[in-house]
């Protein structure tokens, strides 16, 4: 059995869940691959590890490829893990903010991960918000860079603790904040809350490098005639 390494920048999350599920449910094993996952935060460091040959695949945001592979030289996307930009803006429930209202960020401090924040910034700019003039501060999330910490969960905790006015993160973090009563979803472009054009800013993907494809194409996609695992029950 071949061994492969998949990096994910956020683990306790829905963002890259199909890749995590493929490991845990045994789909990689049925392809003859012994796959281990590795949490590498923030996202661009996962792509740097791919570039440097330390891992074989990244389950991460597509746009972060550019940071490690300038002008997209040397990387390839294999599949979408899901369609569309997948982060949500959650604001404190005690603020006067309504769903879909981008103006809710004015004068506020919003937590977001490196490069993930680019999605929020571009969305706000496209919607007519001037980050400087309107006093929008987009910052890191306290505690999110600690080893093994899930970004969305850390963001929900920071919101609950009053360290942020809002956060831009995955749906797991949003669900934590909403169920805990500390947050309300304001923007979610997949569900029509926000500018439609923002849907295609980025997407969660499975990516690899040209080097990996050249070195071991059968690891990337085992030839169809090899195993008969697709006849199995799952």
């Amino acid at each position, binding site marked *: 059995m071949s061994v492969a390494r998949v990096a994910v920048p956020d*683990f*306790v999350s*829905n963002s890259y*869940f*199909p*890749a*995590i*599920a*493929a*490991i*845990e*449910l045994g*789909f*990689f094993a*049925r*392809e003859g*691959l012994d*796959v281990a996952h590795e949490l590498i935060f923030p996202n661009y460091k996962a792509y740097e590890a791919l570039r440097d040959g330390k891992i074989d695949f990244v389950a991460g945001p*597509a*746009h972060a490829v*550019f940071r490690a592979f*300038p*002008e*997209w030289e040397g990387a*390839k*996307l*294999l*599949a*979408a*893990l*899901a*369609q569309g930009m*997948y982060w949500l803006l959650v604001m404190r429930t005690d603020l006067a903010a309504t769903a879909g209202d981008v103006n809710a960020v004015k004068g506020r401090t919003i937590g977001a991960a490196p490069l993930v924040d*680019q999605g929020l*910034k*571009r969305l706000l700019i496209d919607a007519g918000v001037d980050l400087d003039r309107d006093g929008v501060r987009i910052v890191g999330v306290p505690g999110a860079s600690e080893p093994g910490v*899930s970004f969305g969960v850390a963001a929900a905790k920071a919101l609950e603790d009053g360290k942020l006015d809002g956060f831009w993160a995955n*749906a*797991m973090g949003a*669900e*934590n904040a909403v*169920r805990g009563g500390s947050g309300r979803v304001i923007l979610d472009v*997949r*569900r029509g809350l926000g500018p439609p054009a923002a*849907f*295609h*800013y*980025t*997407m969660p*993907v*499975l990516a*690899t490098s040209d080097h990996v*494809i050249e070195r071991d*194409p059968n690891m*990337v*996609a*085992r030839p*169809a005639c090899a195993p008969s695992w*697709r006849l199995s029950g*799952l």
Partner: protein
Amino acid sequence: MRAVVEAQRALKRDVGLATQVGEALFPPAEAALIADVVARDLPYYDPTISEAAVAGLNRFAQESGLAQRSVSYGQVVAMEFRHLWTA
């Protein structure tokens, strides 16, 4: 790569598998939430990378200062494996 596509299909057929994965890997509180969260993502579980998605990615990357120029669809996507999206 087939493994990821098959995982998407399996989760669409039975989102309860998300709980199985969560219970194995996540803290209890998040394991209890994951199936509900994944259920809302299921309509977006499609491995296809469209031309429109790459065009949007190019536009976003340039406007955000991540790229100087547009890259072609064939440079972004591993063309030799695209058939697996629907296999």
